[in-house]
């Protein structure tokens, strides 16, 4: 933080109490204040008083911005063994072996798009306030090579880069990530959307998801303990739950169509949250029950559902995903007293209520037993259809949708640059005749909830 302020030419004075602060008792906070700054080992309050009263230094009187140096295009030549060591020791990998981005390999990767190598794709940084780091098509190609991708995967990886979202945004709360690919490219590059789609059985799913994190490490400069402060980190970041939506078996329109894209467009959609909470089996009623039982930092919920669940929801009477979302919002109400008892709500929603910010201010005035809908609109809830119909189950995440990015903008006009014999892992064995799965007539009509029409 202090370095960032200096870089900006804003030489603020910082002092650091011990950490963490959230959830600590008043007695502990008092000890923090009466104790030392853990960075300098000086008494904290001496520093604070000094920060307010010590005369400005010459540097503080005449601040200048400090620019980071540009990196050379190529590293110094070395043996492959030494370069692998250099990549690992510099923190440029995810800890797993990489493919070295030689000029030849990067040049081959660049055949996966028509865009010029020196075109700037975007800027990225894992914090919200530091200097953003810029990257070109060639830089993204180097990342794609490192991840083990082939040129056919490159348009998807470029779309991820164009999102300018790092897969590992810095927060002490440890963000998790999910990315879903929709449209024809899923099948063209052999992505797995069916059985085991979220498991390590598919090259495209693996390397595309991995590339997002490698670009977050190298473009967005993620460095643990320096600017990446997630206390646990998040295991999803190894490949960011990368898979395709199972459009072929879904009873509903694809996710990207919900977001305004045509069905024949290829699009990657990004999600961000903390938890994959449970697995559930059952109707919308059970989904509403599950999400009413956990706290709300942001109101988002994304259900990853097997295609059988989507079919069941259709059979329950929900004509669209949005119909189901509306019903779940209305039927996952919780007592307002219970809502504000949560640590998160006490710290954040209650503070917003005190400021008069709605709906928190109105909620805070209600009797404790009054029911409120913490997920306030159908937009807070998403359904993604993934899986191979081996179990009519769903998993609940508190992931929020962030954005969708066109992949087709990065495709070569002549078509995807595929290898003569595209590299594929064994595809999951699936039902060939379409007879697997629960027939719609088997759904118990007695459980059918009434869809809510009002939006």
């Amino acid at each position, binding site marked *: 933080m202090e370095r960032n302020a200096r870089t900006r030419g804003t030489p603020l*004075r910082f002092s650091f109490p011990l950490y963490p602060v959230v959830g600590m008792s008043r007695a502990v906070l008092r000890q923090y204040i009466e104790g030392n700054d853990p960075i300098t080992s000086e008494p904290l309050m001496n520093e604070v*008083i000094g920060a307010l009263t010590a005369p400005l230094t010459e540097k503080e009187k005449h601040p200048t911005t400090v620019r980071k140096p540009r990196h050379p295009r190529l590293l110094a030549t070395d*043996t492959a063994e030494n370069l692998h060591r250099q990549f690992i020791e510099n923190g440029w990998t995810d800890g797993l072996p990489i493919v070295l981005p030689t000029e030849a390999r*990067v040049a081959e990767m660049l055949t996966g798009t028509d865009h010029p190598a020196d075109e700037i794709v975007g800027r990225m940084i894992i914090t919200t306030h530091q200097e953003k780091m810029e990257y070109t098509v060639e830089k993204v190609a180097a990342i794609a090579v490192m991840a083990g991708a082939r040129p056919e995967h490159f348009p998807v990886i470029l779309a991820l880069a164009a999102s300018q979202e790092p897969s590992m945004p810095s*927060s002490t709360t440890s963000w998790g990530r999910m990315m879903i690919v929709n449209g024809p490219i899923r099948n063209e590059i052999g992505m797995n959307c069916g059985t085991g789609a979220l498991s390590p059985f598919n090259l495209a799913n693996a390397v595309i998801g991995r590339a997002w994190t490698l670009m977050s490490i190298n473009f*967005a400069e993620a460095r643990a303990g320096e600017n990446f402060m997630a206390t646990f980190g998040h295991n999803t970041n190894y490949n960011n739950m990368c898979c395709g939506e199972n459009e072929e078996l879904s009873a509903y329109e694809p996710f990207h169509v919900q977001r305004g894209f045509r069905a024949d467009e290829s699009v990657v959609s990004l999600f961000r949250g903390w938890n994959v909470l449970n697995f559930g089996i059952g109707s919308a009623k059970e989904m509403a029950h599950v999400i009413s039982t956990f706290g709300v930092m942001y109101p988002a919920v994304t259900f990853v559902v097997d295609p059988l669940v989507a079919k069941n929801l259709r059979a329950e009477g929900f004509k669209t995903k949005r119909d189901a979302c509306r019903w779940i919002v209305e039927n996952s109400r919780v007592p307002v007293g219970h809502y504000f008892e949560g640590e998160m709500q006490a710290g*954040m929603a209650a*503070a917003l209520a005190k400021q008069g910010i709605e709906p928190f201010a109105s909620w805070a005035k209600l009797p404790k037993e009054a029911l409120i809908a913490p997920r306030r609109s159908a937009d807070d809830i998403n359904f993604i259809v993934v899986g191979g119909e081996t179990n009519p189950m769903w998993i609940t995440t508190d992931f929020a949708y962030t954005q969708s990015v066109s992949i087709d903008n990065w495709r070569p006009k002549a078509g995807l640059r595929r290898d003569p014999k595209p590299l594929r892992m064994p595809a999951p064995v699936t039902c060939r005749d379409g007879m697997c799965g629960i027939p719609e007539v088997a759904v118990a009509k007695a459980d059918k909830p009434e869809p809510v029409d009002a939006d």
Partner: protein
Amino acid sequence: MEQSSKVSVLDPRGQPSGVFGRRLDAQSKPSDILNPATQPSSDVKPITMAPRLNSLDGKTVYLVETGFGGSFEFMQELQDWFSRNMPSVKTLIRHKRGTMFTDDPDLWREIKSSGGCAAILGVGG
């Protein structure tokens, strides 16, 4: 590729852009922090610090809590510390409006116009 032969590889790191992120605008939705398209960014210009006070005796110090969990309680303890150790200092706790990610120009104006001599902002989450 021979292990002993030398190879040339690209530096995978991004390049500095001169563009910085900044606090969300006061009216931004909290969820705007999730999307770079809705996160404000700008070039930066050096800002000189305000002159320091000779002493805090008899001065008013604003304790601004940013909204991260625990920061209100931290500021209450800080206020207690001033009461015990520097009773001549008047402290006022203010909550920065919106979430921890949003700007609060009204509060900065209030502090400047209402006799605030200094401000301590904290704490990060």
